[in-house]
């Protein structure tokens, strides 16, 4: 049983390898400044990449029906971890997002977003929204996703919560919910988002900065616009071919989070438009193969699972790139497979493993169907 879509293994591996290289290039200065060790971040990320490949290969061997059976348990684990963050979370950058589990620092958001997709696929398969109406078909799953998003929101982490909600919304859409029903969660989401912005001034400031940037093209380069400004300088100064790998200058503590949320900017600065194009092609291919697997999926569970995971990866990538290029308000979302960060990488690798599993099941099924067809029409 190794007949799956090889692209779904190769592309995550390629992106991860590119990520490790870019993490090294963008974090060496910070490593020296903080830990007197240019390899500090690189070594950790390399270790996680190896771990990620193992996770991906392990997950790709898990049969889909077993995953389906595990779905209710998984959502409990995810919700439990997210709840635990509120109690025993580790503060960082003014938000509580991490859990220390012995040696590992886990970001429950990443666990939560994966389990949410599995759960939604499980639920929507059982109660297709098109058949069960708004109240009984749509509200329960959205309530669960909304609850998870709420737990993420109070960390506070508006962007991850929003993306989780968007993923859920997208899955309901894929599941075939009537379009008029979809207006309801959209409205609720908008209200919750607005309230959150209202109650968190720094988020509001970023949004205001972004709106002002869209309107006038100018940035307050000293205050809240600093990060975006430096990111644009990094990308813009890359030109066609960039400054060469390792030759970037913006990582000299100009661009905060250069190795995590803004790694794209450093990539654009060092590898230029050519490198950016290559990255976008890799991401685009991955999304395309993911959606192809989705479209070919046999059952509703596999279909929704693959669709949800692809959508999630795609949304993270789009929002991350939009933030780096100034097309979205500044927020801290990693670029899937590329950014520095353990849980996110492992979660995405697991997702890639599941996607491969789905594609393999598709191939198997189609091969069977072909055999049957050739047998029936001699």
């Amino acid at each position, binding site marked *: 049983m190794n007949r799956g879509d090889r692209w779904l293994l190769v592309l995550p591996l390629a992106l991860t390898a590119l990520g490790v290289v870019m993490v090294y290039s963008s974090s060496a200065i910070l490593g020296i400044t903080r830990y007197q060790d240019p390899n500090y971040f690189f070594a950790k990320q390399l270790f996680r990449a190896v771990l990620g490949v193992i996770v991906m290969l392990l997950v790709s061997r898990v049969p889909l029906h077993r995953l389906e059976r595990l779905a209710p348990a998984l959502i409990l684990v995810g919700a439990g971890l997210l709840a635990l963050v509120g109690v025993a979370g580790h503060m960082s950058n003014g938000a509580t997002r991490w859990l220390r589990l012995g040696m590992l620092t886990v970001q429950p958001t990443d666990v939560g977003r994966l389990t949410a997709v599995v759960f939604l696929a499980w639920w929507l398969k059982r109660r297709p929204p098109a058949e069960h109406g708004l109240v009984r078909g749509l509200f329960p799953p959205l309530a669960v996703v909304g609850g998870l998003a709420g737990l993420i929101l109070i960390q506070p982490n508006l962007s991850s919560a929003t993306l989780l909600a968007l993923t859920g919304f997208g899955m309901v*859409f894929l599941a075939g919910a009537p379009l008029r029903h979809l207006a309801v969660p959209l409205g609720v989401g908008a209200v919750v988002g607005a309230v959150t912005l209202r109650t968190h001034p720094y988020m509001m400031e970023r949004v205001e900065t972004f709106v002002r940037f869209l309107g006038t093209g100018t940035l307050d380069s000293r205050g809240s616009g600093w990060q975006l400004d*430096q990111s644009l300088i990094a990308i*813009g100064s890359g030109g066609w071919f960039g400054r060469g790998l390792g030759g970037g200058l913006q990582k000299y*503590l100009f661009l905060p989070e250069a190795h995590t949320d803004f790694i794209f900017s450093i990539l654009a600065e060092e590898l230029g438009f050519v490198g950016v194009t290559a990255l976008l092609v890799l991401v685009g291919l991955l999304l*395309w193969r993911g959606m192809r697997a989705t479209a070919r999926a046999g059952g509703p569970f596999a279909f929704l699972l693959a669709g949800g995971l692809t*959508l999630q990866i795609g949304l993270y990538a789009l929002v991350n790139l939009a933030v780096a*290029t100034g097309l979205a308000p500044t927020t801290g979302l990693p670029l899937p497979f590329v950014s520095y960060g353990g849980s996110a990488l492992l979660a995405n690798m697991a997702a890639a493993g599941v996607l491969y599993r789905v594609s393999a099941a598709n191939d198997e099924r189609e091969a069977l169907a072909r055999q049957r067809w050739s047998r029936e029409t001699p």
Partner: protein
Amino acid sequence: MAHMDMRRSRVLVAAAGLLLGLALLWLRAGWLQLVMHEAYEQRAERNQEQRVLIKPARGNLFDRYGRPLARDLPTYSISAAPAEMQDPRRTARDLARLLHLDRRRLERQFASRPRFLWVARQVPPAPGQEVAGWSRRGLYVSIETRREYPLGAAAGEIIGRTNVDNEGVDGLELQLDGDLRGRPGWATLIRDGRGHSHSLPRGLRRSPEDGRSVVLTLDADLQSILESHLGHVVDTLNAERGFALFMDPRTGEVLASVGVPHLPPGRARNWTITDQYEPGSTFKLVVAATALEEGLATPDQWFEAAANGVGQVAPGAVFHDVHKEPRYRFRDALRWSSNIVMGRLGVLVGDERLYRYATSLGFGSISGIDFPGEASGRLRSPAQWSARSAPTIAIGHEVSVTPLQLVLAYASIANGGLLMQPQLVREVRTAEGEVVRRFTPHASHRVFSERTAALMRALLAAVVDSGTAQAARLPGFHVAGKTGTSQKYDASIGTYARGKYLSSFVGFAPAEDPVLVGLVVIDEPKGGHYYGGEVAAPVFRKVIEDLRRVPHGMFEYDANRVAARPPAPAPVTVPDLRLMVPAAAERRLADHELRARFEGEGARVLAQSPACGVAVGRGSSVTMWLAPPVDSLERCMPDLAGLSVREALRRLTRLELRPQILGSGTVVRQSPAAGTALEPGAGCRLWCEPGVRAVGLAPAQPGIMARNGEP
């Protein structure tokens, strides 16, 4: 299948949305990276690059024995950013203890200026390094250099000083700035987002080139001895100022140059080189030595003076003697500094000779010493002299000199008749100690014969032994010299000011074989003492006394003394070159083993320097200024036909032609033809015939004459 179709279409929508988003981002990246690239590139460079100058170390100045006279001292400056400190109170306490500051005040400053403040600047290395060793957050130690002058103000006027940027602004610091300054290096630093700078391994940089060090001719011992005695005299006599210059007569090397009081930076000047004054009796050397050299007087020759001390030496020139005698022998006249006899000698020597020797001794022109702002003194040319000028100048009035010029003149007597090129710099070395340039003593030319110089040395020794300068006498040591006391000219009343004197002494030692010549001038001494013999001569004596106590000083036996005497160039008298054609002047100079230098353009030498009759060393050069070219119309051959021979010749003289006249009477033919361009000094022929009617003196129009042409 309806279900499957719906599913497929919704996947398509989702996939299209994602890929459309990616495409949009691709366009956005293209816009930023390709269209806006220039603007962002510029911002990135402005952001990150800093070109930092790395200052070179300024070169040191050493005295002739290698003792430092000016050097760069590293000092430390400590600044603080209290906001970054972990424990500002503790830091303030430690700093206060180490740097002897007031702890409470420092704490208050920390509280009021949390971002930045200077804790202490120009701290000595020891505490500075200790603070740097703490490496505490919020404390910054930077190294700055400070120019240090070991002799302090004692050598301030000659050494000069530097400004806050360590650039020379006056004195030798200014003169030698090009050597001392060095070349700054630079490095491209990367400034990070927090404002810290990092030197990139691949960053461009140029190492600084440290300034060169200069070994001066000054003697630090003599400089400080001289300064202390001069300062003492200026203080006790409440004088306006005092200045003194000492030199090695054998080499022309300046050993010490002092001015007191030490004026604040900006007003301080080195008077011994940049100031000029009426020398008074010290200038009598010129007329006395000239008279001896020219054989106009012998040391034992008697001269008429005046028993009442008042004598007329020339029309309108009535001189007074302090030491009254009816008549003097030459040697005694110098010994007692008789104005009347020296005035008579001035008349005897005559304007031209007096001027020639004074000029030959370097008076009236700058010596070209390596020092900024050298004065030339004032010596008018004889054409502007009156009948009383020669005797007046002979006794040192109507003339002003710089101390340097006077010392050089006495040095020429001391060294046997040679005018030396004054020298302040011995060697220029790189920071690594490699000698770049070395300056050797150089005699400009011979002024007096060895015999005259020896005679003068003996006469001047008598002045100290038993004359006006007895205050300079030393037991067991033979000093020679001459005093001077001149009334100061007050420009505001247009005459000499009563009661304001310049008292001076210039002398050399040992008298027979001098190794040191020096001038001491006290400006406006008060309290009744103003004679040079009373005021300035003792300073010279005390300096010599102190110098003899200095171990390994200049008055100990020196085996190299003979070698130190420079070879004397045989003197040559400059010929008269005026109105000669350049080529001829050059030939003429070559006959005298002299080199020619021309200034300007023209057919004839208009003026020359040195003037004719001046004695110069073989191989030296004579500068000639050429007459500006006459305009082109006048350099054409005029039409002379019809003119009388006399009128034709009159016209040709202005054209520098050598005409050849054939026949007599009126010009009938000429060669070259009218209108021909002429070479200066070319020849021409005029054919004349008697009987043809002379046109007369009325000149015809040149055009008409040209048309007439040759008959």
